């Protein structure tokens, strides 16, 4: 038998093992900001990745566009219909908004209360990604210099994608919704959700993602809730972390929950978690905590 470990080597091995466990445990918890070596490594790599991802996307997109050319007329027609409907609803919306602002004025709302549900979308370029199931994350080209902070929501044109997990000076990482986990104490917070067109009546918490089926789970739906299969689930804005009105997905199934009293809905996420190009970071009004 050859000698595997002499004393010195065993010592080094144990020290390394212990320091790795310490590092992993330390990095698990929530961290306010990154240290400068991390910032440096992320920003330099981000710069190089930026040179590669976008051109590759354009080339891939060109081939895709040629393949999809015949769908274009159909899509155009659908968009025309949507624009017509949108302009009609826009007028309606302006009336309601004006009335709402007047009521707020008359009821003497505080400034913070008025701006509670205001948010702006900032476009961000994806610069690289990893699809590993236990650490599925995307790197964006906006960082703390652009005002990005941890836990801001990130949406695509389809719907909610995830939250910002770590921010360095010029890049930030997005933790996708697929990382949501009830059993993980450091997972992103649950999303309070409601149903489109039943906003006042429906409520539930989106708490986890099932990797095996690729579906989100909406728990704590109260008795007598009108949620049904085919409904579109949106974020309700209660709790304040996720802004109001972001599309999350479509209800596939409603069943009795874990404890037999509340219901649980299975939701097919609207974002399809692939072919990333641009994403939007949701900037909400600053809140005093």
């Amino acid at each position, binding site marked *: 038998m050859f000698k595997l470990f002499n004393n010195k080597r065993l010592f080094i091995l144990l020290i390394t093992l212990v320091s790795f466990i310490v590092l992993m*445990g330390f990095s698990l918890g929530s961290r306010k900001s990154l240290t400068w070596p*991390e910032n440096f490594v992320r920003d330099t790599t981000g710069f190089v990745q930026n040179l590669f991802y976008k051109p*590759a996307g354009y080339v891939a997109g060109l081939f895709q566009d040629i393949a999809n050319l015949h769908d274009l007329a159909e899509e155009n027609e659908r968009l025309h219909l949507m624009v017509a409907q949108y302009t009609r609803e826009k007028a309606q919306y302006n009336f309601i908004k004006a009335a709402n602002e007047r009521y707020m004025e008359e009821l003497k709302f505080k400034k913070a209360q008025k701006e509670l549900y205001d948010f702006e979308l900032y476009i961000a370029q994806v610069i*690289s990604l990893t*699809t590993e199931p236990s*650490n599925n994350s995307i790197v964006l080209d906006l960082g703390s210099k652009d005002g990005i902070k941890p836990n801001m929501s990130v949406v695509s044109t389809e719907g909610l994608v995830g939250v910002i997990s770590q921010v360095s000076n010029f890049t930030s*990482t997005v933790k996708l919704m697929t*990382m949501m*986990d009830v059993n993980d104490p450091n997972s992103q917070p649950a999303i309070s959700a409601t149903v489109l067109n039943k906003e006042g009546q429906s409520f539930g918490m989106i708490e986890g993602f099932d990797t095996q089926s690729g579906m989100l789970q909406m728990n704590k739906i109260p008795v007598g809730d009108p949620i049904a299969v085919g409904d579109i689930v949106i974020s309700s804005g209660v709790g304040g972390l996720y802004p109001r009105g972001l599309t999350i997905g479509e209800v596939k199934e409603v069943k009795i929950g874990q404890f037999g009293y509340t219901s649980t809905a299975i939701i097919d996420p609207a974002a399809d978690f692939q072919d990333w190009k641009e994403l939007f970071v949701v900037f909400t009004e600053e809140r005093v905590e």
Partner: protein
Amino acid sequence: MRRSVLVLLLFLLFILQGTILPWLMPDSWQMRIIPNLVFIVLLFVTVYHHRHTALVLGLAFGMLHDVVFYGRILGAHSFAMGLSAYLIGLVFQIPRAPLPLMMTVVLLGSLLEDSILFAIYSVFNLTQVPYNWALLDHMLPTMLFHFAMGLVLYIPVRRQLELLKKETRKEENA
């Protein structure tokens, strides 16, 4: 000189696997194949060069991956890549290994690395899926993908390593 070429090559592969490869991969495979080109080259280094070089490079590039794609935990890839490259080198460090043996090493190493990663995530309660499911869902497809990439990389990487070896020998003689 050659050493820095090797490090640059690894860095380039790291950039490529995060930026270009997702575009080349068909949509239905994207979640099932997790390309790790850096690790394939590390397996070549551990077999044809030396396991200590592979260990150090594995720790460094694993940490790079961890920091850049920091979602939940730091150090998982660093630990997995370093340890599996070293263990593979401990068993298979054969400077004249033929192609079939090297491909077996790529398959084994890829499985070992993914299993170590899975174990780390399980220990920290970050994954709830059973090992059997993870094996069929992404470890086996990734293994096959790494096998194919190993074939593509075999000639250029081996040539680089031969040059590196020649240079180290010259340095030792001088």
